[in-house]
């Protein structure tokens, strides 16, 4: 995993875990790897992983059991909310890149529709 160097890493770790959950690599109620294991896997500081987990706990997406570690929430509503936030974030990045290329917001849907049409699998 390669991190952007001009964005706090704890935010990028949060996104990484959200993505794992959204892709089903981490299931509702499943135990997260330990702080140390995550730090090694991502080659980041354990304090930074801890901060990411703290933020996620505060938002309710994960919860901790004393002495057992962190778990993904089983609250379906929260998981849906998390996923839609993730989608919104991707869309925002896409729109901003298109705008930088000079595409006006109002032409986006038309462009996207014709692209999807052109690349539709028969």
């Amino acid at each position, binding site marked *: 995993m390669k991190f952007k*160097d*001009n*964005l706090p890493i704890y935010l990028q770790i949060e996104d990484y875990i959200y993505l794992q959950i959204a892709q089903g690599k981490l299931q509702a109620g499943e135990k997260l790897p330990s702080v140390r294991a995550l*730090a*090694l896997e991502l080659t980041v*500081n354990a*304090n930074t992983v801890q*901060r990411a987990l703290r933020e996620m706990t505060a938002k309710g997406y994960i919860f901790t059991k004393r002495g057992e570690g962190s778990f993904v929430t089983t609250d379906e509503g929260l998981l849906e909310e998390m996923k839609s936030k993730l989608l919104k974030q991707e869309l925002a990045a896409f729109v901003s890149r298109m705008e930088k290329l000079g595409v006006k917001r109002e032409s986006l849907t038309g462009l996207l529709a014709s692209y999807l049409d052109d690349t539709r699998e028969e």
Partner: protein
Amino acid sequence: MKTLEIKDLSYHKNSKTILERVNLTLEAGKIVALVGANGAGKTSLMRVIAGLAKQYKGSVEVCGEADEDRRKQYIAMTDSLSAFRDSRKIKDVADFYRLVYPDFDDKQFADILEFMNLNEDERLGSLSKGMKEKLIIALVFSRKAKLYLLDEPFSGVDAMSRKKIIKSMLLWKPEEATLVISDHVLDEIAPVIDEVVLIKKHSVLEQRSAEEIRAEQESIEEWYEGFYEGEE
């Protein structure tokens, strides 16, 4: 809890100013990059902290201990191994460490050697620059210290070995211990550090949290280079 507290430190050598009015506090458990141009005083600062350079003014406390000989027990610093001849084997160096440092842990040393793909029967003369640096790191993390000082552990080391060394830091640094890594570039350690301390003009010019710098949409490298703009 404070692991290191330096107050008003000045250090001169042969009437040349090496360090001037240095104030620095490092908390327990942090990973800190000590950066600055070559000759800025990074190595001298580490040597003063470690009690190897003694003719300084001001106070240096490690875990509350100011006396040079007594604070040594809390500190593990990298050694260039230049005192060992090329014909020496890795296990000879370990024997020496075991003798000199009561906190040297044999099991841990064997584990780190294995992780680094080093064999204790290899001779120092046959080690590449990267392998030698891996050995130096293995020796330092085999000691149970509160403050680890790594002096330029990446100079002349290839990218793969650098990654291995960084992973070993994450694996073997005790949770409550503080780790200081000096370097003049920051690329690969940037994601693993909590703080960056910049040495310039013989003193600590800046001490910043890495995440704080990134929160301002700036990379640590850009931040660091900003202090040298217009200089050659």
